[in-house]
């Protein structure tokens, strides 16, 4: 539909966005890469000599790094497992006929709109606190010993908090996908003698496959960067028990002011995220053509 004139205009209209994003991507990325090869500590001003791969070997051989990688993976996988399974089940339930469906929907998605620092603090203090938290009261009422969630099971507690935040997202997307399923398909399967369970596994689940993939990929991008929840609950501790990669890089750079090592960690984080990103981009790209 386009004419020569409109093409030129289009290019002018796109360029501010492209130039800004290009700058936003290339300049800091280049600096991170550059710093990662320097001995550069903000507490030790002076020359910042080139040290090659030293920062990388230091960062990668740090025992905290291995813990952080394991924690990052546990956090991502744990949250994904809870939110996807929970999301499918809740979406399935919400798709049934009932009274007040709209209100239940609103209740279920609410946690997604709560800012991370608020949800982390509310959970930390009002629920998980070993003295005054609701869980402590509950345990006491049941005659159990109080449990200090964030000290004794810090990572699991954070997984719980983050899952609460992301469960609505998974539910909402899966519910939307479920509602696009043609009910005649289900009726056809019913006529063909498929039991409810069989209908779920052979029709509903395959129909959801695409939405589940999208949920997994998008959540992974965000979950790799979980930060505020850790900062306000455990500060990565006790020790490094709840430190993930993002938090470790933050700690290196802005707590220990070791710019060189922090940058090397940042590059590692970018590489990790890119592996996921490639899959996600393929999915979305395919959809563009459809």
């Amino acid at each position, binding site marked *: *539909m386009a004419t020569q004139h409109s093409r030129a205009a*289009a290019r002018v209209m*796109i360029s*501010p*966005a*492209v130039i800004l*994003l290009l700058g936003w*991507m290339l300049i*800091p*990325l280049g*600096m*991170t890469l550059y*710093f990662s090869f320097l001995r550069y500590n903000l507490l030790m001003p002076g020359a910042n000599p080139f040290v090659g791969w030293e920062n990388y070997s230091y960062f990668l051989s740090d025992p905290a790094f291995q813990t952080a990688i394991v924690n990052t993976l546990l956090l991502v996988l744990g949250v994904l497992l809870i939110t996807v399974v929970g999301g499918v089940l809740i979406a399935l339930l919400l798709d049934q*006929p*009932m*009274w*007040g469906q709209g*209100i*239940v*929907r609103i209740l279920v*998605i*609410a*946690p997604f*709109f709560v*800012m*991370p*620092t*608020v*949800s982390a603090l*509310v959970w*930390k203090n*009002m629920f998980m606190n070993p003295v*005054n938290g609701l869980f402590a*009261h509950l345990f006491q*009422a049941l005659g159990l010993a109080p449990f200090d969630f964030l000290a004794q099971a810090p990572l699991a507690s954070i997984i719980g908090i983050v899952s609460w935040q992301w*469960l609505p997202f998974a539910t*909402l*997307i899966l519910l*939307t*996908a479920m509602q696009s399923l043609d009910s005649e398909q289900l009726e056809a399967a019913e006529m063909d003698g498929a039991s409810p369970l069989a209908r779920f596994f052979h029709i509903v689940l395959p129909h959801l496959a*695409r939405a589940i993939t*999208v949920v997994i990929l*998008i959540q992974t991008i965000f979950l790799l960067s979980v*930060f*505020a929840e850790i*900062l306000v*609950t455990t500060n990565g501790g006790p020790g490094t028990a709840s430190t993930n990669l*993002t938090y470790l*890089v*933050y700690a290196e*750079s*802005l707590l220990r002011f070791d710019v060189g090592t*922090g940058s090397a960690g*940042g*590059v590692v*984080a*970018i590489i990790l995220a890119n592996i996921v990103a490639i899959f996600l981009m393929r999915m*979305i*790209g395919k959809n*563009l053509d459809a």
Partner: protein
Amino acid sequence: MARAVTPRRKAINTALAWGIGILIFFPILWTILTSFKTEAQAIADPPLFLNFDWTLENYVTVQERSNYFRHFWNSVVISVGSTLIGLLIAVPAAWAMAFVPGRRTKDVLMWMLSTKMLPPVGVLVPIYLIFRDTGLLDSRIGLVIVLTLINLPIIVWMLYTYFREIPGEILEAARMDGAGLRSEILYVLTPMAVPGIASTLLLNIILAWNEAFWTLNLTAANAAPLTAFIASYSSPEGLFYAKLSAASTMAIAPILIMGWFSQKQLVRGLTFGAVK
């Protein structure tokens, strides 16, 4: 289409769904309730559900002690500001890509998205240093810049998926009807694009309001929005549940309401149109 089910079945569904809904919503409900208690009632054992003396004193105290509304205003300025600037840049870009697609349009879109995949921690150090050296650290303008840039890909994408649904034939009809570029934009395109732009605006204000990596790392006392201000409650300083709840309630209430209005667009915006 929902099939007719027996009332019994429907009642069971209803009970189950409401149970789960209330369970998931409970932490928010509890926060709101606690914000109206005194500090002593907030930690009472057994917990008080509704049978307490409702008070507004926490809201007053939070404002008095910490100048709450300055942080609230920071949040407003940062989230609305970054979204508006983002729209200003993204509307022309998305318009051009949707209506004058070229051979590379798809690549540009995908590339823009890929910048969103960049983990923030990967560029934390340089941004921090640039901000320190240019005096943007702990300034609202600095945060507006960063949040504009990190949300720009989402804004472009959302607008693009909305614009693409406006049939090209309508714009051609307008041209045949004698509309110049100005009238085309004014009378045809804008009215048709407004719903899409509005939901993009809404969703991005929500995202920017809740952003908690850059806001925590780039602000201190001055420009701290609510995310960072609330984080300051993480250091235990005695009994403060009721005040934390009051501060939290005020921080999440506006977004909760906006969020409920935008739930449909949320799916679309956050999945980049991959699920509708």
